[in-house]
């Protein structure tokens, strides 16, 4: 929330730049084409957390794959830190967690992270140390020696995050990182993302959990049927300018009436009064702490 990251004015290229991106998929035999991404343009500044939102099938994952050079764009282009996607160098400083990730099931969690670390050019003691670091960071230290095929959905997301972080990239692209992760886990993930931001990393994240995005992102873009329909600061988009809300101790009805009368005497209106509620998520997190988690990690 609040201040956008440092501007790209001083000659530093944006972390992500997408210009006029179009992607058509051929569907069916009669050359029918489906436009999954339709003239999308936006930029992500270094150091910010950027949310890419949209309903199912709106083209979020496709945009990300185009960005990573996994798909060829039909038109337009994108660049990562100024390097056009499609070049291998563009992917040097990026960690990617695909949606519903799947990994080599015949490896153990640790072997998997080691493999990806090697792919990114790490080796020796530095690699071993980094692998232990990220495995602990994502909370899988207790299950790192089990084969990936025995992992649950949430554990797959975690090992995927470890894999994305292993080479300490400047940019992190997370496609629905909290799908299948329990609320405690996703809160931990949000903390982790904020910690990464504090270290100057840039994060592009997609999610359907708008509550979470809202607490996390500096800016968001909203896609609908492949088109960019809104983009801006979270506070600008979601805030209601010129409006305010209160939370107080419980009040008897005569005091509420008095408050209303006082406001009306000054030409204002009290528009809503409702009992305050805690969010279910907070209740859940209060009851299911880290202590409960350690049972899962017991061998």
């Amino acid at each position, binding site marked *: 929330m609040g201040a956008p990251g440092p501007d790209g004015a001083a000659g530093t290229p944006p972390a992500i730049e997408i210009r006029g991106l179009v992607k058509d998929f051929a569907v069916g035999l009669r050359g029918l084409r489906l436009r999954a991404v339709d003239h999308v343009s936006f930029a992500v500044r270094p150091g910010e957390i950027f949310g890419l939102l949209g309903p199912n099938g709106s083209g979020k994952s496709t945009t990300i*794959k185009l960005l*990573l*050079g*996994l*798909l*060829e764009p039909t038109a337009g282009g994108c660049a990562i830190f100024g390097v056009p996607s499609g070049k*291998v*160098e563009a*992917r*040097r400083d*990026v960690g*990617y967690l*695909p949606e*519903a*990730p*799947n*990994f*080599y*099931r*015949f*490896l153990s969690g640790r072997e998997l992270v080691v*493999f*990806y670390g*090697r*792919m*990114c*050019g790490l080796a020796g003691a530095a690699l071993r140390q980094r692998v232990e670091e990220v495995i602990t960071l994502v909370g899988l230290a207790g299950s790192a020696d089990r084969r990936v095929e025995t992992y649950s959905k949430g554990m797959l997301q975690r090992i*995927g995050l470890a*894999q994305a972080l292993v080479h300490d990239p400047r940019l992190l692209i997370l496609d629905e990182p909290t799908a299948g992760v329990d609320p405690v886990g996703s809160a931990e993930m949000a903390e982790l993302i904020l910690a990464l931001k504090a270290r100057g990393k840039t994060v592009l994240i997609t999610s359907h959990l708008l509550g979470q995005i809202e607490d996390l992102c500096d800016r968001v873009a909203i896609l609908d049927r492949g088109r960019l329909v809104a983009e801006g600061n979270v506070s600008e988009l979601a805030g209601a300018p010129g409006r305010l809300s209160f939370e107080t101790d419980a009040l008897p009805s005569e005091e509420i009436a008095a408050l209303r009368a006082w406001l009306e005497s000054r030409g204002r209106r009290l528009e809503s009064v409702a009992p305050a509620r805690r969010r279910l998520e907070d209740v859940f997190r209060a009851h299911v702490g880290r202590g409960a988690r350690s049972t899962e990690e017991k061998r």
Partner: protein
Amino acid sequence: MWLIAGNTLREAARQRFFQFLLLLAFTLTFGARWLRDFNFGAPELKFLADCGFGAMAFLGAALTIAATAQLFFSEVDNRTALTLLAKPVWRAEFVLGKLLGVAALAAVFCALLTGLLSLVLAWREAELVRLLPDAVAPGGGVSHAMVALGGLMQWLRLLVLAAFTLLVATFAQSQLFSVVTGFLVLVVCHLQHLAQDAYVRAGSAAGLVASALISSVFPDFQVFQIADSLAAADLPATGDVLRVTLYALGYSAAAAGLAVVSFRRREI
């Protein structure tokens, strides 16, 4: 690239199916010794060798085709290729890594079986010499260099087969299609010399063009038959061996190159 190859090999090594094939081939080679237990001297050794190489050729081809298609599609279908290719990895590295992984698998297969065959032959030869002192003519014994050469030829053949199957897999949509096409390629390559004969005898222009096309696109697997004997005297000249090796490497490289080009366009 080496990492991908290593990982591919590790995946294969941890799969039941491939462990099973290896075991089966072992059993066949070893079991051939009991298949016919009437001592008829040197021809029996030849029979043993044929059995061993037959198992190697048949099961090796099955192993190679299945492994190539399976290891390639397991990456694509399980979406592990997404994560891998999002790392700073060239597409060419991916394809060549897969090929090298399968080549290494085939090499392990051929080396193990050739070693085993050599042992079985040496053992049986010793036994025969003891039972029928004059059954094995002096100098007519088993040449282990020849057996090793046979193993090498088997591997070269599997390498070419792997490269062709991989080429098919890079543009095929399904694993089954790749496997079936791989076997078709195998058959065509074995019957290749027939096409060449037809090429020579073809009456019609169309037949001439077709057979010329087939014989230039597909390699001729008959060329790998240069080690079809057990006698040291039949050991082919080094030049011939080199020529056949280059022939196999050339075809493999061409197929691998095409596979890289075709995989560059693939959407994953």
